[in-house]
């Protein structure tokens, strides 16, 4: 009966539980699908250290790389402690 009334007043579309389920599932899957294997994350770290070391002297042990998922949008967040700036640009290093 309540359902019939709801339908009559046309206010059930948004809070149908199937739509809630779909939306939640979509969010969860975005997260699941972008989760990266530790192996790849490690390789990414190595490469970043390699590139950044060309310009800056960094604390490699303090390096943190993570994925951040907020508001349905994925971001790579890196925290890289800098020991000191390099005065000269060294091509080989």
């Amino acid at each position, binding site marked *: 009966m309540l*359902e019939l009334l709801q339908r009559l007043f046309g206010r*059930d579309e948004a809070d*149908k*539980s*199937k*739509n809630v*389920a*779909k939306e*939640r*599932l*979509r969010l*969860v*899957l975005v997260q*699941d*699908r972008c989760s990266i294997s530790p192996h790849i994350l490690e390789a990414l770290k190595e490469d970043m250290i390699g590139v950044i070391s060309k310009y800056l002297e960094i604390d490699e042990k303090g390096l943190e790389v993570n994925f951040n998922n907020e508001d349905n949008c994925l971001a790579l967040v890196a925290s890289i402690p800098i020991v000191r700036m390099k005065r000269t640009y060294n091509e080989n290093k």
Partner: protein
Amino acid sequence: MGEVIVITSGKGGVGKTTTVANIGTGLAKEGYSVVLVDTDIGLRNLDVVLGLENRIVYDIVDVANGHCRLKQALIRDKRLESLYLLPAAQTKDKTAVTEEQMKELCQKLKEDFDYVIIDCPAGIEQGFKNAIAGADRAVVVTTPEVAAVRDADRVIGLLEAAGLNEPDLIINRLRPDMVKQGNMMDIDDIIDILAVDLLGVVPEDEMIVISTNKGEPAVLDSRSNAGEAYRNIAKRITGEDIPIMLLEANEGIMALFKRLIGRKK
């Protein structure tokens, strides 16, 4: 040379074992020779669903370790001549069999049977890896719930990583009445998210409980809705082109009518 099909889901309790029993029985009823392999070592159930639990002498671990011949461990179904079961061991665990042994076993079974259907344990650990090791194709079972669909998505990814591309999907325990009310995800919602081919849709059916109690797959019961869905799935596996059952949401006159017709047969 037959085909090895693994039935998997990731999440437990979505109906893998019931699906295996029914598809296998359905295929055997169509005249194909079928062997069902239970790989859920330590938590076997397929034997009970088929009503063959008290005939087990040897199991898959005995075969894998060479303690008996493959033929000795195969149990013939009570009802269908061309249906066999290779039971799992109950007193061991998943590490009792290796992926290599499973590949070898599937290869051997393929030579003698048209279809080798593997019942995969829940989870994505060693038991899952063993179950998919020798498979040629995969079927993923899910239910219209967030948790089951999420796990199905994970499993599809793992299957693809293992080289089992384009797995088929079975949506189990769908309730047309709830879909109509908008309180359950419908077929399109799920296919939209998982992006795989649909092999079939099985409606929620209390006859499944009854048939499991009796140890007789529902596919043999002409009055069971789920049984009819499984019959169609079995036919689709063999390559027949049967449209997906469009579920009548008005579970009333139509269903009653159908059942009356079924009873007359």
